[in-house]
Structures are given as structure tokens and as C-alpha cells.
């Protein structure tokens, strides 16, 4: 998802309208169209906690962008549908066109994260993505982990890009532009507000979304560095990996051990020995894969790779026994023990080779089977990183 980009793109759309459409597209329409997708779906993505109980989506990315889910609110089809409804209701071309443009801008911008949007819905429920940055709305991390992920990746660049586009067309923010291009398509709306507010407040209202976008970018990008809040990790977040392919990467990326421990682990790896944790026990089930213990400093529940309950780790239960809650092995087919055992491969049959999750990311093979029993939050994170690989990638040379 995009954070500041949506705030800036409404001005960018206004500034880059074709000449014959200038002064004929409703700013309120663009604004409403641009924010409708998130108004309809995002409240449940992060959820709310009341009395210690969290109410929200179990799989945020599925709810937000998937089908079944509210992913339909991020489709061009839905935008056209609502625009058609607006036209039938109000018969205002400026509002209808503005709404469609704003909606399309939102849906197309969201293509850039690792989950993407269903651009061809209802003909296809595939999510189209360029995977420019990671979608990191998770159950445990919530809004703040998402912000940290976004602003420690190319998401920040995206926001700055849109900000640059608007600043390059700075005239769109002037009072003259507002009077000549913004007010005429919405005369009734601005007149109604003008009965209550002075002109400077009306102009501030027009600038308010831009103001909020700038403040949000600065605060989110700079805030955690200056003072760690209770929810954000201490220290800089910019150099910390977040939910993407690095989340299942070698130990140094997401390891919570002290530096000396990491150095020792790297030395052992160079010698071909498995890494050893601070408690002296071996980490990993032979292959040295980093444990997803912390994402951006936020401790992640459940077993990561190389931990009990995690892929490649020690088995804490006999194969085939029922699993409960977070100790469930998320990827039984790739975990320790005999491969294929969990899937009922007949004795004597050749087991399938173990595949590293990265193999799909690198294009060395296909990772086509989704893991079952997705309950742990770690798994959510990993899924957010791996799942988009099933989907077609656009805009990649």
C-alpha cells in the first residue's frame, strides 16, 4: 500500500489534466475517488483492539487486496461501477470523471507493492504487482510496522516522487489556480462551505490533504529515528529489513543476537559448520537460514526457520501428530524429517526434493503450493513475502 503517495496524487492528477479538461474535473470527485478504496477496506486491515481482543482481518493482505475479500475495492472495475452510479445519481460529468480518475490513480499506485491489485477483475482475480516495495500490514505489527516497512523501502522514494511531481507543478497549489480551476467544477460545494468559512480556510481545506501527506512522510520517515515510540523499534528503521524476501534471508538480516554472536555465527558458516545460538545450541536443521525472530525490531511470534516449530528447525512433535496454535509447522513439506512424509508419499516412492523458498524468488523453480495451516504471524509475514511470486509481474523488463 502507499502512504503519502495517495495524498499527493490527487494534486498531480489535477495538475496534469489534458488542456481541454482543465477546470472541468471536480477536485472533490478526485479526492473521493482516490480515498474510497482505503475508506472501504483499510479499517479492518489494521483492526481495532477492544478490551484486549483484536477485531480485524486474520490475513490483512487477503482482506485488503484479495478475492474473496475487499480487494474488489481496489479494482478499476469497481471504480467504473461507482462512477457509473454517481453519474446516474447526480448527472455531473465533472464529479464522475474526477471520481474515476482518482480511483484509477489509487488502484494503479497500489500495484507497486508486493501484493498488488486485481486490475483485470472480474475477468481475473490475479493480483498485478511490480513488487517495488513490501506490503507489510500484519496482524501483530499493525499500522506501525506497515509504516516502518514502507518508509524503510522504496515506498519512501515513491512518496518523494509524487511529492516532486506536485512541487514541479507548484501552481496547482496557488490561490489563483484554486479560484480558476478548482472552484468552477464544484461551485455548489465550495459555495456551501464558503457560507461557513472564510476564503483562507477554504484554501487551507484545499491544501489540507497535501499538508497531511507532507507531514505524514516527514513524521513517519524521521520519527522513529529521533525517538522510538513504544510500538516502533528503537534506533533507525531505515537499515532494518522488513517483510520481503530478506525476511527469510541469512541470519545477519533478522537475527536478534548480539554482534559478537553474529560474527561468530558467520565464522562458523564460513567453516561449513552450522551456526550456534547464544544459548550454545545449534540453530537450523543443517542449512543455515536466518530465524525470523524480529521484523524491524518487533518480535515475531511463532517459529522461524531454524527454530522449533519453524521450517528447517528441530521437530518438537512426532510427524503426523496434531498441531496446535503457533507451534504448528507452517511448511511441513519443507521442514526437517523426511520430505514428503506429511503429504502421504507412499513408501518407496521418490520424495520430492526440498526446495528453498527463495528458489521461486530467484526464478530457479516454482513455489506453487501454498503452505497449510497459516496461523502464526510469522507465517503471515513470510506469506506476504512469498505469495506475490505466484502472480504475474508487470513492468519488468
Amino acid at each position, binding site marked *: 500500500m502507499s502512504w503519502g503517495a495517495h495524498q499527493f496524487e490527487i494534486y498531480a492528477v489535477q495538475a496534469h489534466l489534458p488542456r481541454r479538461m482543465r477546470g472541468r474535473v471536480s477536485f472533490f470527485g478526485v479526492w473521493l475517488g482516490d480515498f474510497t478504496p482505503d475508506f472501504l477496506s483499510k479499517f479492518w486491515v489494521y483492526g481495532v483492539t477492544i478490551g484486549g481482543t483484536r477485531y480485524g482481518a486474520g490475513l490483512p493482505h487477503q482482506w485488503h487486496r484479495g478475492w474473496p475479500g475487499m480487494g474488489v475495492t481496489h479494482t478499476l472495475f469497481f471504480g467504473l461501477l461507482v462512477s457509473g452510479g454517481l453519474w446516474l445519481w447526480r448527472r455531473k460529468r465533472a464529479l464522475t470523471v474526477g471520481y474515476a480518475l482518482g480511483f484509477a490513480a489509487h488502484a494503479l499506485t497500489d500495484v507497486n507493492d508486493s501484493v498488488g491489485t486485481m486490475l483485470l477483475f472480474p475477468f481475473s482475480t490475479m493480483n498485478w504487482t511490480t513488487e517495488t516495495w513490501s506490503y507489510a500490514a500484519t496482524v501483530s505489527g499493525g499500522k506501525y510496522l506497515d509504516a516502518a516497512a514502507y518508509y524503510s523501502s522504496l515506498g519512501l522514494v515513491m512518496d518523494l516522487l509524487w511529492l516532486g511531481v506536485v512541487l514541479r507543478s507548484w501552481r496547482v497549489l496557488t490561490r489563483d489556480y484554486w479560484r480558476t480551476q478548482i472552484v468552477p467544477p464544484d461551485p455548489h460545494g465550495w459555495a456551501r462551505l464558503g457560507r461557513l468559512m*472564510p476564503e483562507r480556510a477554504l484554501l*487551507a481545506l484545499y491544501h*489540507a490533504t497535501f*499538508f497531511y501527506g507532507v*507531514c*505524514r512522510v516527514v513524521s513517519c520517515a524521521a520519527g522513529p529515528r529521533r525517538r522510538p515510540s513504544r510500538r516502533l523499534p528503537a534506533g533507525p528503521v531505515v537499515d532494518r529489513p522488513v517483510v520481503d524476501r530478506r525476511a527469510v534471508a541469512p541470519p545477519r538480516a533478522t537475527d536478534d543476537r548480539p554482534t559478537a554472536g553474529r560474527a561468530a555465527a558467520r565464522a562458523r558458516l564460513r567453516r561449513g559448520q552450522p551456526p550456534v545460538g547464544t544459548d550454545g545450541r545449534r540453530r537450523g536443521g543443517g542449512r543455515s537460514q536466518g530465524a525470523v525472530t524480529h521484523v524491524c525490531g518487533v518480535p515475531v511470534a511463532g517459529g522461524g526457520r531454524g527454530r522449533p516449530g519453524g521450517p528447517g528447525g528441530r521437530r518438537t512433535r512426532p510427524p503426523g501428530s496434531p498441531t496446535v496454535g503457533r507451534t504448528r509447522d507452517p511448511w511441513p513439506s519443507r521442514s526437517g524429517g523426511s520430505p514428503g512424509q506429511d503429504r502421504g508419499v507412499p513408501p518407496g516412492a521418490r520424495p520430492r526434493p526440498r526446495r528453498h523458498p527463495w528458489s521461486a524468488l530467484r526464478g530457479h523453480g516454482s513455489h506453487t503450493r501454498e503452505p497449510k495451516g497459516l496461523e502464526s504471524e510469522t507465517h503471515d509475514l513470510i506469506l506476504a513475502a512469498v505469495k506475490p511470486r505466484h502472480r504475474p509481474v508487470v513492468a519488468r523488463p
Partner: protein
Amino acid sequence: VADERAKVVRLDHLGSRRLSAREVALCYGLAGASYITLSIFHKWLLNWFIGPLWLVTFVWAGPALVDRVRRRSRP
């Protein structure tokens, strides 16, 4: 006539004073600085509703308050 016209230009449709460019910059700057500073420490302030309202309140109420204080402080 020139004074009348100047007075009309300085007032908007509700009779409120139009701000000079410097005043506008000051209002927006103060609003931005205060909002960013506070929202760094209190993330809940980064809100769709509070953010825009913050600016509108600063620009709307700020100059009005300053004018009122100035009027009162005049002998």
C-alpha cells in the same frame, strides 16, 4: 476610491481579512512544524481527520485570535 478598493481586496466574501503571503507562510509553517513534532511523539495524531483539521484550524483560527488580541491590547 483607491482606499475603498484596497479594503475590498483585503477582505473576503465573509468580511474576513485576507492574509499576506508572509502570514500565510507563517501559518502553514507553524501548523506543519507543530503537527510534525507532535506526531513524531504521538503517532495517533497522524490521522486522516486530525491532519487536515489541524491546518484548517491553524489558518482559520490563528489569525482571528491574533487580531482579537491585538485589538484588545490597543489603548
